[in-house]
């Protein structure tokens, strides 16, 4: 009987200590360091990714600008050659024209044809430039969206890294008692082990006392 009472008392005390320390530890753990580290790393990686994204978009935009320049050059060349062909084709009829009216009509048609080609070239240049501008606008939109995502992540990280009130409270309390949190965590583990052993001893005692 005496042995059983001792076991009961030890068990109750251990359970009480366990509860108090577990409560302290739970309150004082705050945000786990693994979570803080991952959060900080995520912000760092996202910042770095944003830099890579900006550099990548810059290269693509420079490539598009170069394509646009090359295309404009070719379009100018097409217009120039077309004007030359139109002129060459008009030379013979102008020379063969019987009167000024006929000559004027041929020259008028020549001017119209050259102008039509010129207009088509200008319109195509404008359309192409608009598409490249659209590409740049989309890049800008994507970067702004990513910056917003990053800002939100940074804000979450600010909160995660923040020392919470319960954490501060327990840190202050354990400071008053003169122990550190690691020791509390270790104590909780130790007590849990001791409780397990007491439980085994208690069961063994009950079995021994059983008739």
């Amino acid at each position, binding site marked *: 009987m005496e042995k059983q009472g001792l076991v009961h008392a030890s068990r109750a005390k251990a359970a009480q200590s366990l509860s108090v320390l577990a409560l302290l530890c739970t309150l004082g753990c705050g945000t786990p360091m693994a979570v803080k580290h991952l959060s900080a790393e995520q912000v760092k990686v996202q910042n770095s990714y944003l830099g890579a994204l900006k550099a990548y978009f810059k290269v693509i935009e420079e490539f*598009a600008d170069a*394509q*646009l320049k090359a*295309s404009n050059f*070719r*379009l100018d060349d*097409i217009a120039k*050659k*077309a004007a030359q*062909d139109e002129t060459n*084709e008009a030379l*013979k009829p102008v020379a063969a024209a019987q009167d000024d009216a006929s000559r004027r009509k041929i020259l008028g048609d020549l001017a119209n*044809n050259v102008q039509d*080609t010129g207009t*088509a*070239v200008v319109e*195509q240049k404008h*359309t*192409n430039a608009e*598409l*490249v501008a*659209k*590409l740049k606008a*989309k890049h800008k*939109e*994507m970067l*702004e*969206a990513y910056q*917003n*995502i990053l*800002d*939100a992540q940074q*804000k*979450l990280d*600010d*909160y995660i890294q*923040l*020392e*919470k*009130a319960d954490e*501060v*409270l327990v840190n*202050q*309390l354990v*400071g*008053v008692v*003169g122990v550190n949190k690691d020791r509390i965590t270790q104590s909780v583990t130790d007590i849990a082990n001791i409780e397990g052993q007491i439980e085994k001893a208690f069961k063994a005692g009950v079995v021994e006392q059983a008739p």
Partner: protein
Amino acid sequence: MTLQEILDTLQNTMQQLEDAGVNDTNKHDLRRVITRLKIALEGAIFDPLRELDSVQVPDTSQLKALAVQVQQEIDNEKARVALVQKLVAVSKKVIRAAGVPLPV
């Protein structure tokens, strides 16, 4: 048939007309068609960019509003921390005043 293939075919026809010494209005019209096609081909290079209209960038406007709320929580938590620190400091003074020794 791609624009380039059509252009190649027309240019071959043009060449055949020139080789045959043909120099009439039809040949001139064909040359103009080729010119227009060359211009259109310059546009085709940039055509894939038209697909950008269908690329939807996610709406992140909610994130900004929610971040403001998180900032409010951060401010609240800082205020709670300040209060806890003040309470603990006062408690320590009271305990010491009662003659209970505390670690520094």
